């Protein structure tokens, strides 16, 4: 019997790969071709769609040749692609309208700025689950339509087509100008800012906002479904899947069950968590996205934690510093020493993504002494990826109230054993690599083979998943805590490097906004339990009103307080392990109530005095983060407390707080704490929006939720800010301010309880 295969095309940011898989999901052939990166101006990144198409024309037959197979042996073709990258082309000639605008391209920043603070922005957030950002496709389309003479007219006449890379390739494979099929899939469409996340259709309101004519859009199809037969390159081969690359990796890791997550380590790293059939909106800096949709089955959604720079830091170490010859050699160099020698590298090369979303941050190397060698630097490079993963996992745990029990990893960096061990160490959970690190391609192949009947169901695919390697945590808990705290301190030192001019705006109104915004918190409980909030539900309009407050929060509180301050230790110096069965994955002392106390990050009043500091040019800077302490301290115990520094916060918290929140110090609110007191504090923090509930367990959840609401490390709000920071001129600022005022609801008395 002739062997039959599924072909996957992984059209990535730097190269296009073509991989053949057999029925066991085993790799049979791989071919790859890189394409040129065009950087015509600072901040611009372009690819030539024709070059990418030609690459596919070459590597697909090469892969067949490598396997000694013919086109007839290919059951189906699935495509995974770099997401958001935008191609416009002429329907009649097949020629692209200029080069593709790549996801990293920031040319649309002013466009996105203009949206900020408008009602349109609220609509975008609500419909798409994403903040308007240069990252996504719609602003890129708009920019091209605005800047190419006559293009809008042609688009309105239906002469020009839009697509992300999978659309472009499918259209060409199925005939191009000669009857090519113009389709996209739900995962790619979910990254355009033009699709309604719940209906999975293009939405007129969104099209209007970005001025995109409907005629140019592809049809949105499921991720796994036969789109058509190839007429070029692989004539007769059924094209039956398309997914964004990160979603494809989720599929390839067979994370088909709600609560399953994977992290793909490449240039950047992306942690995706299957959240089931309902989109979950993050309050911790994560993105809401479509995971996949198989045929007529309901779509599966995902939460995404995006880390911009991981593998790219190793590349920089190789190309920028020349300290290693190949990326893999970083492990050799790192193993030449036993630890990081006190050195930390935070690769905020273009700001920080999840969970911080701070675009004004820039990278730092801290802790340098004469002792530090290139070996220590190599360690610090790898550790940066570990700690960034930890931050995203913490955000994920907080958003879902489920602690990740193990992390499935894939991508090229998983070949680095030292790094994988370090990730297991800092997450304190097992890290598992499946028997295929090419999970992006595997996911596309799985989806295609599923649609073509090559594989019968998800269960079979799930059985194909095998553990190829596993790393178990081995780090001493005390060291982990100390190192994590050092990492936080290093991260803080990246903040505020690029000085945005709008920092001083709209502070006095912002605290209230921040307060209000907090109530938007559709958390998701383990048993599908969705907590209803009493009081009025504040939606995105109000969330928006809090944006400048968010901005302020990002300046100082972007790291959730519990991650910024050192872990409180309860008296007996031994650091604590996560208790079994703690549904939140929070360590003792990390529960919401205790977190609130730390550094005042969750205290809206904080913004006021922070503003005061900022406005005072003579002020040397922010006070250092105070270490949390293991016992409550009385007000005024610290004689050095500047008068009025925390005044507002104190007033707001009231007397019941006194023993707990002192100068922003937190202390442990572990299991031993009096539940009544804890609840009282909860109530104080929640103000009138909180309806106290019965039962300890519930209060624990409440604690988390409360932090979610008040903490401004809010992805939905935060990510937008980040992508704009630093780009506003004074004029835009005042416009934006004015908009903020318009949207502001009548102030509430923050002290009212």
């Amino acid at each position, binding site marked *: 019997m002739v062997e039959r295969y599924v072909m996957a095309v992984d059209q990535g940011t730097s190269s296009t790969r073509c991989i053949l898989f057999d029925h066991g*999901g085993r790799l049979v052939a791989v071919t790859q071709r890189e394409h040129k990166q065009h950087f015509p101006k600072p901040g611009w990144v372009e690819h030539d769609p024709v070059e990418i198409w030609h690459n596919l024309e070459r590597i697909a037959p090469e892969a067949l040749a490598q396997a000694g197979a013919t086109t007839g042996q290919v059951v189906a073709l699935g495509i995974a692609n770099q997401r958001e990258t935008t191609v416009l082309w002429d329907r009649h000639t097949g020629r692209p309208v200029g080069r593709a605008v790549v996801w990293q391209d920031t040319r649309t920043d002013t466009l996105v700025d203009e949206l900020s603070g408008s009602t349109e922005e609220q609509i975008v957030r609500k419909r798409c689950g994403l903040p308007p950002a240069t990252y996504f496709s719609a602003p890129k389309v708009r920019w091209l339509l605005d800047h190419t003479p006559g293009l809008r007219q042609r688009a309105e006449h239906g002469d020009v087509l839009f697509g992300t890379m999978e659309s472009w390739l499918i259209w060409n494979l199925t005939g191009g100008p000669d009857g090519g099929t113009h389709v996209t899939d739900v995962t790619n469409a979910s990254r355009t800012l033009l699709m309604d996340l719940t209906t999975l259709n293009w939405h007129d309101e969104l099209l209007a906002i970005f001025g995109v004519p409907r005629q140019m859009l592809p049809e949105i199809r499921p991720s796994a479904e036969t789109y058509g037969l190839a007429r070029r390159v692989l004539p007769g081969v059924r094209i039956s899947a398309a997914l964004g690359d990160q979603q494809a990796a989720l599929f390839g890791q067979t994370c088909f069950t709600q609560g399953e997550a994977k992290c793909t380590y490449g240039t950047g790293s992306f942690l995706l968590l299957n959240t089931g059939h309902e989109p979950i909106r993050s309050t911790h800096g994560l993105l809401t996205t479509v995971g996949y949709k198989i045929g007529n089955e309901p779509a599966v959604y995902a939460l995404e934690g995006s880390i911009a720079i991981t593998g790219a830091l190793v590349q920089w170490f190789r190309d920028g510093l020349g300290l290693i010859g190949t990326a*893999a050699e970083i492990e050799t160099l790192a193993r030449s020493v036993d630890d990081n020698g006190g050195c930390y590298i935070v690769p905020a090369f273009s700001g920080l993504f999840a969970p911080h979303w701070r675009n004004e941050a820039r990278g730092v190397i801290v802790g340098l002494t004469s002792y530090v060698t290139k070996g220590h630097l190599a360690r610090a490079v790898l550790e940066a990826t570990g700690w960034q993963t930890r931050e995203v996992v913490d955000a994920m745990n907080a958003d879902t109230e489920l602690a990740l029990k193990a992390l499935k990893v894939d991508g090229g960096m*998983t070949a680095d054993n030292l790094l994988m061990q370090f990730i297991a160490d800092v997450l304190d959970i097992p890290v598992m690599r499946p*028997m295929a690190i090419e999970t992006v391609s595997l996911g596309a192949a799985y989806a295609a083979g599923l649609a073509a009947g090559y594989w019968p169901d998800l269960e079979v695919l799930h059985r194909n998943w*095998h*553990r190829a390697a596993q790393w178990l945590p081995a780090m001493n808990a005390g060291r982990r805590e100390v190192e994590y705290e050092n990492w936080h301190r290093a991260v803080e030192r990246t903040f505020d490097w690029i000085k945005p001019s709008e920092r001083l705006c709209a502070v006095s109104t912002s605290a209230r906004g921040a307060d209000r915004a907090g109530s938007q918190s559709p958390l998701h409980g383990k048993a599908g339990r969705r907590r209803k909030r009493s009081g009025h539900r504040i939606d995105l309009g109000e969330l928006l009103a809090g944006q400048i407050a968010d901005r302020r929060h990002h300046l100082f509180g972007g790291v959730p307080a519990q991650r910024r301050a050192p872990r409180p230790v309860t008296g007996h110096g031994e650091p604590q392990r996560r208790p079994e069965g703690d549904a939140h994955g929070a360590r003792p002392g990390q529960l919401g109530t205790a977190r609130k106390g730390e550094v005042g990050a969750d205290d809206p009043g904080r913004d006021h005095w922070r503003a005061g500091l900022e406005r005072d040019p003579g002020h040397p800077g922010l006070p250092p983060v105070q270490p949390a302490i293991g016992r409550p301290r009385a007000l005024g115990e610290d004689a050095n407390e500047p008068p009025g520094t925390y005044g507002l916060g104190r007033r707001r918290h009231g007397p019941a707080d006194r023993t707990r929140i002192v100068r922003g110090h937190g202390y442990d609110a572990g299991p031993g704490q009096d539940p009544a007191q804890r609840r009282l504090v909860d109530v104080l923090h929640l103000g009138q929006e909180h309806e106290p509930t019965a039962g300890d367990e519930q209060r624990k959840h409440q604690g988390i939720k409360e932090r979610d609401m008040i903490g401004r490390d809010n992805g939905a709000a935060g990510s937008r800010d980040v992508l704009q920071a630093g780009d506003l001129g004074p004029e835009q600022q005042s416009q934006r301010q004015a908009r903020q005022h318009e949207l502001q609801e009548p102030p509430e008395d923050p002290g009212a309880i």
Partner: protein
Amino acid sequence: MPGPIQSIERAAAILRLLADGSRRLGVSEIADSLGLARGTAHGILRTLQGVGFVEQDDETGKYQLGARLLHLGTSYLDVNELRSRAINWADALAARSGEAVRLGTLLEGRVLVVHHVFRPDDTLQTLDVGALLPLHASALGKVLLAYDANAAAALSQNLLEPYTRRTITSAMALARALAEVRDNGWAAEVGEMTVGEASVAWPIRGHGGLVVGAIGISGAVERICDGKGQPKSTLVTYVRDAARAVSRDLGVSR
């Protein structure tokens, strides 16, 4: 016996020329110095560049000695690099054979395990990257010995430690076994390191055919071997295909 090979002599002359100079040289300068046609000089330089003995400056296009020439004595392929090149094929081999896969290189008279893929049955297994295996009692080791005369010579002077009754303990028997490995192109070991376990390995070759490591599978004798106690030919073929795929990757990318 054939005479000296002209192009190798010319290559040696180019290296001497570059080693003498304190600055980089262009193709024309080199061609003029040695009285060669420009095209000939260019061809030799490109080849030398390919093996890393010569480096070309990106901006000026001029040549200098390559860093790899300075490290001729040391292992030219970083073991972590080897792992990252082999990882795809090692995974596929494990999935196909149903057995655990290991990659090994020579390290001070032992086999250093540089990569390990679990047997794909999701049982509890421990990653043993960094472990050292005996050269004479493992399939990986036999492959590495067969293609490294120095290592083989060094080993035969020492006592060959017995691990089981089947371990090869005489230098003569080992030499015979290694000759057989070179004839077959692959090595096997049946119960020679651990009773009831067997392994099969093939060499991984880098540029010019240099053996840079070995890849193999290991598992229970009854799974690895047929009724006659010989490794199953399908498994041997799987390992061979993986070894060739890794070798091809190492060859084409430099």
